[in-house]
């Protein structure tokens, strides 16, 4: 028992152990409620909900009516759970930085590449997130929604997506890091 508790308190698990945990959770999601994991769809559900209220004409198209219907879906609740789960994870390892000084940007590697300013981190996260959501909309899912939960059903779409993701990820990292690659 002591051993398990100590392992839970560790800041960084072996990725294999954490992967096994996620795999079991993936099975449980399908078994208990016949749903797949996913994160990016939830943002589109919420965006649809807001959009329909603010500008119903602009959001009255096929995408928001049929592909991503607005509303509080399974995915939205899942995302809330992910938020708290991540917080619990950080709290158990004692790295929760809620409200502390370097809470927004404490990544040494990020600071070395882009500079220490906090606003840069916000701006880049915002732009990057737009790119991510847009791409997830085209592909039909994100890392969790398509690559992992599609992959565990052995869907070809997932593996095509992973191929594309790594190809351009490597190129982007090359561009950002140049000599430091």
């Amino acid at each position, binding site marked *: 028992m002591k051993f398990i508790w100590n392992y839970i308190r560790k800041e960084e698990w072996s990725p294999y152990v954490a992967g096994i945990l996620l795999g079991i959770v993936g099975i449980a999601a399908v*078994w208990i409620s016949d749903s797949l994991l996913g994160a990016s769809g939830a943002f589109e559900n919420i965006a649809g909900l807001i959009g329909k209220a603010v500008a119903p004409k602009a959001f009255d198209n096929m995408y928001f009516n049929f592909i991503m219907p607005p509303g509080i879906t399974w995915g939205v609740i899942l995302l809330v759970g992910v938020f708290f789960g991540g*917080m619990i994870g950080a709290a158990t390892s004692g790295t929760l930085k809620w409200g502390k000084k370097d809470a927004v940007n404490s990544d040494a590697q990020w600071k070395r590449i882009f500079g220490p300013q906090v606003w840069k981190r916000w701006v880049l996260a915002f732009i990057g997130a737009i790119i991510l959501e847009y*791409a997830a909309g085209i592909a039909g899912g994100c890392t969790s929604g398509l690559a992992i939960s599609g992959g565990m059903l052995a869907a070809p*779409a997932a593996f095509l997506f992973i191929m594309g993701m790594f190809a351009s990820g490597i190129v982007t990292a090359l561009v950002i890091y140049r000599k430091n690659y």
Partner: protein
Amino acid sequence: MTNYIVALFVGAFIGFSLNKAGLTKYNKIVNVFRFTDMAVLKFMMTALVVSMAGLYSLRGLGWITFPNIPSTYIVGNIIGGLIFGVGMALTGY
């Protein structure tokens, strides 16, 4: 309603495992593209193998039916993946 409670718990476990694997950190995500830290791949592939084996054997036993499998449209999947990689390397999502 029970479905929502299940979603909350499933989500919490996802967040927990992501956090413990270090995938909530920018450097972990970017370093997999620089081939200096392969934790992301190890994590993803372990999760894939475990759940793939579990789901297919459960289906073989006839205990579960698969939900809708994400549809394949080759151009969309690849182009989406290509754009996604840019955002991933920028933000560390």
